[in-house]
C-alpha cells in the first residue's frame, strides 16, 4: 500500500504544477485538470491513511511521518471544502503546493508501523492530535493564500480588487479557524498532560512553542480586528506565523528534546 502514498505524492506535485501554470496563463482547462488530479491524489492519500489506521489498529497520527501525512491530508480536505464553498481558483493555488510540500516532508520520515507507546494510549489522543492537524492545515492554507496574495500584488494587481479583498478576508477567516483549533490543541494537551505526567503545563519545548505560535496568531488577530490591518501586512504576518508553526511541528522535535520527543520517532 506504500505505493498509494507515493502515487498521492506524485499526483499532488503534478496537480500543483498544473494549477500554477493554469493560474499563470489563465487557462481554466488546466486548472480543472489540476483539481481532478488533486482529487485523485486525495483519494489515494485517504486510502493509504485508512489502510494504515486499520493495519496499526489506531488513529494513524502517532509519529512524525503519520502526523505529517495527516497534516497534508487535512490541507487537501480543507482546500476542497473551501473551494466547494467559494468556487475560487486561488484557494486551490494556495492549498495544492502546501499539501505537496508537507507530504514530501512525510516521505523523508521513517514509515514503518510501530506499536503506539504507552503515553499515547489516551482518549485525548484523537482530539489533541486531530485538532492539531486541522489547525496547522488552516494556518498552511492561510500562509499559502498570503503567498498568492503577495505574488498578485507583485504582478500589479490592486489591493482594492474584489478578488484580492476576498483572498485577504479568507486568509483572516481561516486563521480564526486555526486559532480556535490551536486553542483546543493546547487545552486538550494540558488536560492530557495532567493525567499522564501530573502537571498541566511543564514548559516543555513543544508546549512553549505552541504557546509562542498561539501568541503570534493572537497578535495577528488583534492587528486585524482592532488596528484594521489588511492586505500586504496581513499576508506577510500569515507567512511569518506559518514559519513558527513549522518550527513547532518539526523543528522542536529535531532540535529541542523534551517530553514530546516521541513525536519525532
Amino acid at each position, binding site marked *: 500500500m506504500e505505493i498509494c502514498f507515493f502515487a498521492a505524492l506524485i499526483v499532488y506535485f503534478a496537480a500543483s504544477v498544473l494549477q500554477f501554470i493554469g493560474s499563470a496563463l489563465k487557462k481554466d482547462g488546466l486548472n480543472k485538470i489540476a483539481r481532478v488530479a488533486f482529487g485523485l491524489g486525495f483519494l489515494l492519500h485517504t486510502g493509504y491513511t485508512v489502510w494504515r489506521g486499520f493495519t496499526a489498529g489506531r488513529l494513524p497520527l502517532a509519529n512524525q511521518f503519520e502526523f505529517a501525512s495527516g497534516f497534508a491530508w487535512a490541507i487537501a480536505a480543507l482546500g476542497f471544502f473551501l473551494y466547494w464553498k467559494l468556487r475560487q481558483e486561488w484557494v486551490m493555488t494556495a492549498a495544492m503546493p502546501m499539501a505537496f510540500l508537507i507530504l514530501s516532508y512525510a516521505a523523508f520520515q521513517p514509515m514503518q508501523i510501530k*506499536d503506539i*507507546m*504507552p*503515553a499515547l*494510549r*489516551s482518549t485525548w489522543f484523537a482530539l489533541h492530535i486531530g485538532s492539531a492537524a486541522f489547525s496547522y492545515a488552516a494556518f498552511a492554507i492561510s500562509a499559502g493564500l498570503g503567498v498568492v496574495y503577495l505574488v498578485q500584488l507583485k504582478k500589479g494587481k490592486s489591493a482594492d480588487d474584489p478578488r484580492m479583498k*476576498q483572498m485577504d*478576508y479568507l486568509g483572516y*477567516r481561516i486563521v*480564526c*479557524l486555526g*486559532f*480556535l483549533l490551536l*486553542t*483546543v490543541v493546547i*487545552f486538550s494537551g*494540558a*488536560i*492530557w498532560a*495532567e*493525567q*499522564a*505526567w*501530573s*502537571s*498541566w*503545563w511543564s*514548559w516543555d*519545548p513543544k508546549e*512553549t*512553542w505552541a*504557546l*509562542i505560535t498561539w*501568541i*503570534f496568531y*493572537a*497578535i495577528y488577530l*488583534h492587528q486585524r480586528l*482592532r*488596528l484594521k490591518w489588511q492586505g500586504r501586512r496581513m499576508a506577510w504576518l500569515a507567512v511569518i506565523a506559518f514559519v513558527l508553526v513549522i518550527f513547532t511541528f518539526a523543528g*522542536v522535535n529535531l532540535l*529541542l528534546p523534551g517530553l514530546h520527543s516521541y513525536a519525532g520517532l
Partner: protein
Amino acid sequence: MKRILSFFRSMTFGMILLAAVMALSLAGSLIPQQEEAMKYVNAYGAQTAALLMGLGFTDIFHTWYFYALEILLCLNLLLCSILRFGRTRKAGERLKQQAIKAACDQPFADESQFQKITAYLSGQRYRKTESENAVLYSKHFMGFYGSFLVHLSILLVLLFGSLVLMTPQVTDQTVMPGETLTLSDGTTVTCESFHIQDESGKLDYASVLTAASPDGKQSKTQEIRVNEPLRFGSYKIYQQTYGTAGRIQIRNNSNGAEEIQYMTEPAFLAIDQRNGIYFEALYPGYFRDEDGNFTLITSTDRSYPDPVYRIQSITDGMSAAVLAFPGEEINIGDITFSFLSPAEYPGLRIKRVSGWLYGGLYFSFGLMVAALYLCFFAIPVAVKAAKEGYVICSPKNQEGLALALEAEKSQAGKNP
C-alpha cells in the same frame, strides 16, 4: 490617573506584554532550563554562563520578571474585560436601532422578492421582530459577548492555571510490590503488584494499588498506568517511573534467621562487617562468547530477560568479583546469600490537589473555546426587510450573507 488606567487597559499595552512573554518563552525554549551550573559553563563558557544565570535565563519561567509580566497581563485583561462588558451590554439593542433607522440599500423589484428574502431568513432561524413598515431579522447577538468572554476566560486560565501549578503538594516515592506507604494524613497506599510488560509482551508499566483512608473505612483498588492515575479523596497517584531491583535472600545458618533485601543501589551485605557480599549492580542480560567471557547488557526499557548480579564476594577483607544468576547461592562463613528473580517496582507521584481549582481551570478552558467560537463564528447581524428593499447591519463583514440574499432575490419568481 485616568491616563494611566487607560494605558493599562489598552491593546497596545496588551500587545507589548504578549510580545514580551513570547520573547522570554523563546529564550526559555532555546536555553536549557534548570540544569546544573557546570552544564552552562561547558556549553557557553564561564562568562556567558554567569551572565545567563545572573539574568535568570537558566530558569526563566520562575523569575520575578516573568511573574511580573503575568500579573500585568492579568491586570490588562481584567481592565479590558470590564471595558468590553460595558460596551457589549447594550450593543445588541444599538444594532437593532441602527438597522431600523437604516435606509434599505438593496431594493426589491416586486413583492415576490420580499417574500423570498423573508422566507429565507426565517428558514435560517433568524429572530423575527415586527416594526413599523418593516420586519427586522436578527441573529447571533450572543456574538457581542464573544470578545469579552475570550478576554475574561484568558484571565481565568491564567489565574486558575497559576494556582493549580503552585498549590499542590507533590511527593515522588518508589514502592516495592507488597509494600505500604503511609501518607502525612494517615492515608495508606499499598502496591499490590507491578509489571513492565503485559501478557502479550507490550510495554505497559502498570501498578495495582490499594489506597485506604486513615480509619480504614474507605478503600479503593485500581490498576494505574500512564494516563490512568488513581484518584482517592484529595489524592491523585500517578505511575511516574519504574525500575527493576535485585532480590537477595540472606540466611544466617547459625540461628536460621532469614530476610530478603531489595537492591537498587550498591551496598555491602554482611552480618559481621567483615564477611559478606558487596552488591554492585543488576544487569538486564548478557552475551557469552565461545571462550566463556561475559559481556553485560547495561540497560533495557523492558523486563530483564536474563538478569545477572555483579557482586564482590568478601571474605576476611579479601574480595573477588563474581557474577551471580537467579537461583544461585553463595556461602560465606555462616551466611548463605540466595540470588532471587529481580522485582519490578513502580515510582509513584503522589499529588494532593484541590478539586475546585481543577474544576475552575477546566471550566476556563471550555469557556475560552466557546468564547472564541462566539467571537469568530457567531457574528451578530440584523437585516431590515421592508416592501421597498432590505439592508444588512453588522459590526463585521457580512459578505457571505449579502451574496446569499442576492442569490435568493434573483431566484424570486423563477422558483415559486
